[in-house]
């Protein structure tokens, strides 16, 4: 159960990273910062009172979407067509800046929130009590995965998102406003990270340093599952979540090592990830 809840949180964190890399080709080192920012937004809006959780959750997500759109317009656009190290430098700088700005705005102390309304009581699985919000978080992540899949595969705009990863110049020649599409995709990825951060807050306290841990976990999930694949990200999140949970039970001192062993094994035998596709060859 603990593993599933942490998988849900990891999925929401990593799926935006995968989406942004898949479509824009940007390796977003600041992705964990936007996860943290979503949590900070929710904490600030509710003033740490779980009673306002559901009420303010959409506001926190909307704020994350806006931040994503602004960051893309102001910063990302300038490095889109430049060498990868510019993108890495820029996103790393953003990580540092967001961390310090968060410290100034929200303080450096640990922040957490109680269980949201409707999930105050524990549930019993095999006689062991678990916070019922574990199920709530899994449900929210599953709903987000389903909605994202429907958007990407059942709407025309979703088809454009998949097409832009394959040939952005051709898409422009067909009349698609690619710069606007990039803003939408980046905002969506950041919105998902913000949503992940906000809904994880009842289970995971937030403070400075969370952003770096989060982005590392997100990269591991995405590498294991396969970049650009939603189901791959879901599988990666479940594997990593469960490995961490079971590792902590069985061999706590090695629990982190298990994660890296899995990642190394995937990189050795299936470098494009478990559900990712090997690079396509154009005919």
């Amino acid at each position, binding site marked *: 159960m603990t593993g599933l809840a942490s998988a849900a949180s990891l999925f929401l964190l990593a799926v935006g990273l995968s989406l942004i890399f898949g479509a824009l080709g940007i390796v977003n080192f600041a992705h964990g910062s936007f996860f943290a920012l979503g949590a900070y937004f929710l904490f600030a809006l509710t003033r740490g009172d779980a009673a306002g959780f559901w009420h303010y959750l959409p506001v926190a997500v909307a704020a994350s979407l806006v931040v994503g759109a602004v960051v893309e317009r102001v910063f990302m656009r300038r490095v889109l067509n430049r060498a990868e190290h510019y993108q890495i430098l820029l996103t790393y700088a953003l990580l540092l800046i967001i961390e310090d700005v968060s410290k100034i705005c929200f303080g450096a102390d640990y922040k957490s929130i109680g269980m949201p309304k409707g999930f105050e009581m524990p549930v019993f699985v095999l006689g062991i009590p678990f916070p019922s919000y574990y199920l709530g978080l899994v449900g929210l992540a599953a709903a987000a995965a389903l909605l994202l899949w429907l958007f990407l595969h059942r709407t*025309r705009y979703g*088809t*454009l998102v*998949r*097409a832009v*990863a*394959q*040939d952005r*110049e*051709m*898409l*422009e*020649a*067909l*009349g*698609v*406003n*690619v710069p606007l599409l990039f803003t939408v995709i980046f905002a969506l990825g950041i919105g998902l990270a913000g949503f992940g951060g906000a809904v994880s807050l009842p289970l995971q306290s937030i403070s400075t340093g969370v952003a770096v841990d989060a982005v590392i976990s997100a990269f591991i999930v995405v590498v294991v599952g396969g970049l650009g694949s939603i189901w791959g990200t879901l599988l990666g999140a479940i594997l990593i979540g469960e490995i961490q949970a079971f590792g902590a039970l069985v061999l706590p001192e090695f629990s982190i090592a298990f994660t890296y062993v899995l990642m190394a094994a995937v990189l050795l035998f299936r470098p494009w990830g478990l559900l990712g*596709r090997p690079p*396509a*060859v*154009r*005919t």
Partner: protein
Amino acid sequence: MSMLALEQLVAGYGPIRVVHNLSLTVGEGEVVALLGRNGAGKTTTLKAALGMVRVSSGRVLYRSRDVTRLATHRRAMLGMGYVPDDRRIFPELTVRENLEVAIKRGSKNGRGWTSERIYQLMPWLKEIQRRRGGFLSGGEQQMLTIARTMMGNPEVLLLDEPTEGLAPHFVRLVSDLVKELKSSGTAVLLAEQNLRFITPLADRVYVLESGELRLEGTMAAMAEKQEVRALLAL
């Protein structure tokens, strides 16, 4: 009124100028061929017309409107369509999705091309509509690329060497498509080296060599000129 006009166009990549002082016009419902050997500047001309290659001087006019500084997607929205010579279908998308990508906002007014109309014209495309683009043969990909651009209802179509590497069966299909477009009033600028392919299709011809205009005239006049054959190294 000319649908597309290039005036004293100079275009290229970075410091390299590929096309020098090129002027040409394409009228309504007219098929104009741009002939030349490999490297003559045909692709660069088409890409410059659509804004995919930098224009250092000269102008691109679409329906007498100066679009030289307009973004590529805006030119496409105005009514310019482009079919590249290297096909460039979206390999991970299905045939149907490849067609849907090109639908433009506000074009669902009952007129113009729909996937159903495309399937009527190319019934075999309907049979493979769920297949991924990357799994099609070269000829099928070429037809899909043209069909995809048609879905955007272009008024001017820039067609880059559509018969390159195609089997005779597909060359005939492409030829029929160009005729169909012409009869529906679409202006076509057709870059080619295949003189036999363009002879029954083109109204007028421009011949390029090393990025410069060498000859121009009606198809009938040009077809007889030995000079054209020499410039095409036939």
